[in-house]
């Protein structure tokens, strides 16, 4: 029988450690994804995952169930990421994925039907998105992360970030518009670079 988050939280609050372990197993991947996309470095994201769950466990009695457990965890994670960036006194890193070896690439294909060219294009896009996101103001970046990758509603994001619903929509719109312009510009630059390379090699 699969228990809901709320049931597991109630049991964990009463001292059932196994229930808390189940909550961790259920939510550690999304929390890692959020931390990684916020900080840009896997190692730091893993540290944040551990710290977030320890902090959640310590604060379990203070969690009144007004928001979803996942929203509460996301807020803890974003706060930890913010502290981490301040502590390190630098902006979140943009770390391109390692390895351009053809064999590595073949292993990373999303589907067996994906060609190596498609995979390379996807990885290029992944890097471009990561770079463009890192340049956004924090509040726009958080709104986009929570909406796009974690499927929160506008209201949930507003409650979590402590701002009006209309502000969430504005941040999303502005953030997406900036991303769109940057990505289009990058794509145009890459296309012109490819064209120049092709022309120089054919002449």
């Amino acid at each position, binding site marked *: 029988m699969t228990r809901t988050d709320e049931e597991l939280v109630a049991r964990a609050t009463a001292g059932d450690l196994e229930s*808390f372990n189940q909550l961790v197993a259920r939510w550690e*991947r999304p929390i*890692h994804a959020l931390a990684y996309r916020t900080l840009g470095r896997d190692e730091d994201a893993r540290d944040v995952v551990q710290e977030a769950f320890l902090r959640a466990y310590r604060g379990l009695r203070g969690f009144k169930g007004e928001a979803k457990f996942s929203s509460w965890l996301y807020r803890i994670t974003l706060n930890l990421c913010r502290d981490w960036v301040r502590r390190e006194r630098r902006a979140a890193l943009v770390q391109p994925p390692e390895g351009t070896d053809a064999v590595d690439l073949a292993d990373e294909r999303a589907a067996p039907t994906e060609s190596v060219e498609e995979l390379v294009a996807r990885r290029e896009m992944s890097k471009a*998105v990561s770079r463009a996101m890192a340049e956004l103001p924090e509040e726009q970046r958080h709104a986009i992360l929570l909406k796009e990758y974690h499927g929160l509603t506008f209201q949930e994001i507003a409650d979590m970030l402590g701002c009006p619903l209309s502000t969430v929509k504005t941040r999303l*719109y502005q953030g997406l518009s900036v*991303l769109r312009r940057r990505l289009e510009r990058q794509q145009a630059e890459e296309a012109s670079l490819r064209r120049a390379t092709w022309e120089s090699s054919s002449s």
Partner: protein
Amino acid sequence: MCDERERLIGYVYDECDPDERQVIADHVASCETCQQEISGLRRVREDLLAWDVPEYESVWRPFVPPRAASWRDLPVWALAAAAVLLLLAGGAGGAVTYAMLPHRPVLTAAAAPRPAAVVPASDVVHSADLEALEARLTEKFQNEVDERVKLVAAHASAPAIEPASDVATSPEDLRRQVQALRVTLDRVSKAQDQLSKSVYADLMSFGETQRRIEQGNNYILTSLVRHAPADGSAGR
């Protein structure tokens, strides 16, 4: 609409009420600028899907509920070290005792090799025997607890009064019902008390069993020391 582009966000994420959605759809159908805006937002959302995260393996070390410490919790090396210490302590003790005893003259010619001490087979305790004993006692203990819980639960749930008259029609009825409720509560309280005592007694008995098993284990170690060959070839 063209001046309030944020409204398009609700439309793009399909998170607006039906009326609002209809208004936006009607506008977009006739506004090329908003059509481009919406297709641009959808395109950037598709691009965002490309952002991968690295493979994740759990870093969480699950919480383990605390339990009573036992010699079984000790690692094998610690048990082995304890056995070696016992052997050494036994050997040292024996050497000291031997040194302090008055020595008899050594009989060489008549001294036939003494037979090695033979331990009756029935006196040797094997760890398998102890494990079987532990399993038997644990099962017995569990069965007894189950029986007692059932007994007490049945006792506590026995109704004290017939639920014939739900509503008291007179002060007499009311008094009688209150009295009956008191009796029931008293019974439940006694049953709970009995259950607590019984569980406590069983736990004590379980502790005693564990203590005996540990004694058995010590006995094995002592036997090893006592019957170890004098040439020091034990354990080879």
